[in-house]
């Protein structure tokens, strides 16, 4: 039992970007991740209506997005789950303790396309959801094309409630 069918349609990168823009996101802070590189990061870099901030480390992005939120400027942090793990203290202190709207898009590098994260053979993937749940962090899975359509609403909610949200991207977004 792996949780997903063996057919593996991928989420649409252009639709994810449309959702970000519809949610009034202006900045994307990112450390490259191979899951989202082709379908998201390169297109975002070429998109003149989004400003890409290249980070040296992922936890910088937590602080950048937090600081921007004070005047309502919307930003998202794009990274791999390794960066998410590296950023847990910043997430705890800045996003959770301070109740700030930090939106994270996290590529699950090493996750098999046909299974959910909790069934992955990769330890680094399998622990992600238990870690998030132990911190009471909200998350959504972006595995199937239809999952993408929740992004705008979740971002709006995140800013309205002033709380963090994490999108776990389990399949590489495609270019269509």
């Amino acid at each position: 039992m792996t949780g997903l069918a063996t057919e593996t349609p991928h989420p649409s990168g252009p639709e994810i970007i449309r959702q970000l823009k519809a949610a009034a996101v202006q900045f994307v802070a990112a450390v490259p991740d191979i899951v989202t590189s082709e379908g998201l990061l390169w297109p975002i870099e070429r998109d003149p209506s989004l400003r890409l901030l290249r980070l040296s480390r992922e936890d910088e992005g937590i602080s950048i997005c937090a600081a921007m939120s004070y005047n309502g400027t919307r930003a998202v942090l794009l990274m791999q789950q390794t960066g998410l793990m590296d950023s847990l203290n910043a997430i705890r202190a800045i996003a959770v303790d301070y109740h700030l709207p930090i939106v994270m898009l996290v590529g699950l590098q090493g996750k098999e396309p046909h299974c959910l994260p909790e069934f992955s053979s990769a330890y680094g993937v399998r622990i992600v959801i238990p870690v998030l749940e132990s911190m009471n962090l909200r998350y959504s899975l972006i595995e199937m094309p239809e999952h993408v359509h929740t992004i705008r609403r979740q971002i709006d909610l995140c800013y309205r409630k002033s709380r963090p949200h994490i999108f776990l991207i389990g399949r590489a977004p495609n270019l269509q």
Partner: protein
Amino acid sequence: MRRDLALQVLARTIHSRDIVVAVYQALFDWLALGPRELDYVSTGAMGQASSHGLGLALASPGRRVLVFDGDGSLLMNLGALATIADASPPNLWHFVFANGTYEVNGAHPLPAAGRVDFAAIALACGYRSTYRFNELSEFELQLANILDQQGPLLVELKVEPGEFFPRNYPYIHSAKARERFRTALNRN
């Protein structure tokens, strides 16, 4: 130079519309001079001041953002120098109060204390210009000129502790402090 005296020089020079992001003892010394509404005090995790400053500078291009960092704090997030240089906000001034210790954690020495050249590293990363001051009088003489230039710009100040001011951690992590800043930022 004494850190509290250097901060007094800064307090006399900056404008009421400027945002100040300060950390640890520099923050407590700064608050003792008289808290301002646009003091951004809730940086959360050690080392993150300059990253908060970058976010503020990009989101508020009409304001000057001054970061009062520590050398220990900056060492924890040294890659931020490259990130800031890459984003190149013209309204960001990065002051590093270098005392060679983790002062609030027991004053233990930093690794390579006294040998790390933050001004040189920032310049190599692509900051527009950098300065280093050992003497308060020279810093005071140059400060207005420094603030007239475009950022990102780093100023390394070799400091020693001055008068001891209380460390009010509950305030800097409080919802009240964040709301005060948010209200002032969005007022005009």
